[in-house]
């Protein structure tokens, strides 16, 4: 399995087989709940191009990125503060543990009370669900900064912003990224749910609309689109992570090889 071609063919073989099986098994299917793959794929471009792309998919993505960005900024900032001071951490820990344990989707009805059913509600729901993994992982990461490194920084009189930028954040970044990754999948879930609950547009809204109207092939295209979206976002995340944490993965590979 050295060349690119054999590796590629191994990777593609099973998915191709599964899709082929699905295609064949469903092709002359008359069950309305399981439309044939041919129907789904021919419906897909009709449903998700032009207007619907602009009116439903784009708003969903914008809300997701706005909520996720808020959560990332708030989580890293608060996490750094809480992680840096032992006493603050001890005071906050039980409350944070409790807040994190609340299943994020139950926040939808709560936040609806405050923010109505507009975009603000959805962004707030996404942000308030995503913030916990980021916050808690940042706290752990900041707490675990190598003591030799922070002592060295202190003896060189590196303090304040410089210390944060060059010592604390880089060494906490692998943990922060672990949190960001968890937050991403929570974010997608919350995006869909907040739209299923109360909305007039968005991916989640449209898919439920199709289901209620028994537009089954259209509903299937929505499910496929949500799946694709999750996949694409996780690939993008991995690319960003590899770029930002390249030094860390390199370091780990070296130490693994030498051990």
């Amino acid at each position: 399995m050295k060349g690119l071609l054999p590796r590629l063919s191994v990777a593609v073989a099973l998915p191709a087989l599964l899709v082929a099986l699905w295609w064949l098994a469903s092709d002359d299917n008359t069950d309305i709940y399981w439309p044939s793959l041919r129907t789904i794929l021919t419906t897909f471009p009709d449903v998700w191009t032009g207007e619907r792309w602009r009116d439903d998919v784009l708003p969903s993505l914008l809300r997701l990125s706005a909520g996720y960005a808020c959560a990332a900024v708030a989580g890293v900032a608060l996490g750094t503060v809480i992680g840096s001071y032992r006493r603050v951490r001890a005071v906050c820990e039980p409350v944070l543990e409790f807040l994190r344990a609340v299943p994020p989707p139950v926040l939808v009805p709560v936040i609806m009370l405050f923010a109505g059913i507009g975009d603000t509600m959805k962004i707030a729901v996404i942000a308030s669900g995503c913030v916990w993994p980021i916050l808690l992982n940042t706290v752990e990461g900041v707490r675990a900064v190598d003591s030799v490194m922070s002592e060295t920084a202190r003896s060189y009189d590196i303090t304040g912003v410089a210390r944060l930028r060059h010592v604390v954040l880089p060494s906490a970044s692998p943990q922060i990224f672990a949190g960001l990754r968890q937050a991403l999948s929570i974010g997608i879930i919350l995006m869909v749910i907040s739209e299923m609950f109360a909305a007039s547009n968005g991916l989640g809204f449209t898919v439920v609309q199709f289901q209620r109207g028994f537009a089954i092939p259209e509903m299937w295209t929505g499910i496929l689109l949500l799946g694709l979206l999750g996949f694409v976002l996780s690939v993008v995340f991995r690319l960003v992570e590899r770029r930002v944490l390249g030094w860390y993965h390199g370091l780990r590979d070296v130490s693994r090889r030498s051990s």
Partner: protein
Amino acid sequence: MRGTNALLGAAGLAVFLALGEAVPRLGLVKDEYFPPTSRIADALATELADEAFWTALGDTLTGWALGLTIAVTAGILAGVLISVTPYLRAATASTIEFLRPIPSVALIPLAVLLFGTDLRSVLLLVVYASFWQVLIQVMYGVRDVDPVAEETARSYGLGTWARIRHVLWPSALPYVMTGVRLAATVALILAVTAELVIGAPGLGARIAVAQTSQAVPEMYALVVVTGLLGLLINVGARTVERRALSWHQSVRGEVAV
């Protein structure tokens, strides 16, 4: 040291609850949006006295436990099977990478269509979401088996089954436990979500009803219950993990959650 931390933690909790009481009473937030702590506690007490609440709690726990059991069993079996056959591992890698990030809530419309507000709807979502957590951890764990131990077992003539039982399983167990712990949390989230959105019986459905009938303190009380449930599951999973790994407390590159 531990005592002071617990004391500070209790103080933090007290401040949190006091703020929850003071903010609405001072009129900073309308109390129909955010009732004071005492009123939520009242509603919670009423809930606890209500039989329907306990039925709902039981429904949620049933969905959670059943889904988690299925997902963990399937995840472990599939994970071990895939990992011990290099052939399968190469062939399934791309499929797993593709299926895993698919958000389980995408399946909600399908679940509604197939099973309505049945327990099976909840199970479909719970199992799909928690299966991957276990599977991925098992696969990492098996990959981490010490090659020397593996070769030693081979040269002593242990069969495949004995190697799985005595070499592979113990060294993968820490990873498996992490997977189970993650899956336990995810399973609760999805169980409550399914009830909330689909309307399958349980705490989530009760929250949805409280919300539509403007019973704000009850809604908060139920949210608090789900939080406590999550906390209990977390603590429980950690305890089980520590018990199962009492012989192995080394810190394996575990992702903190």
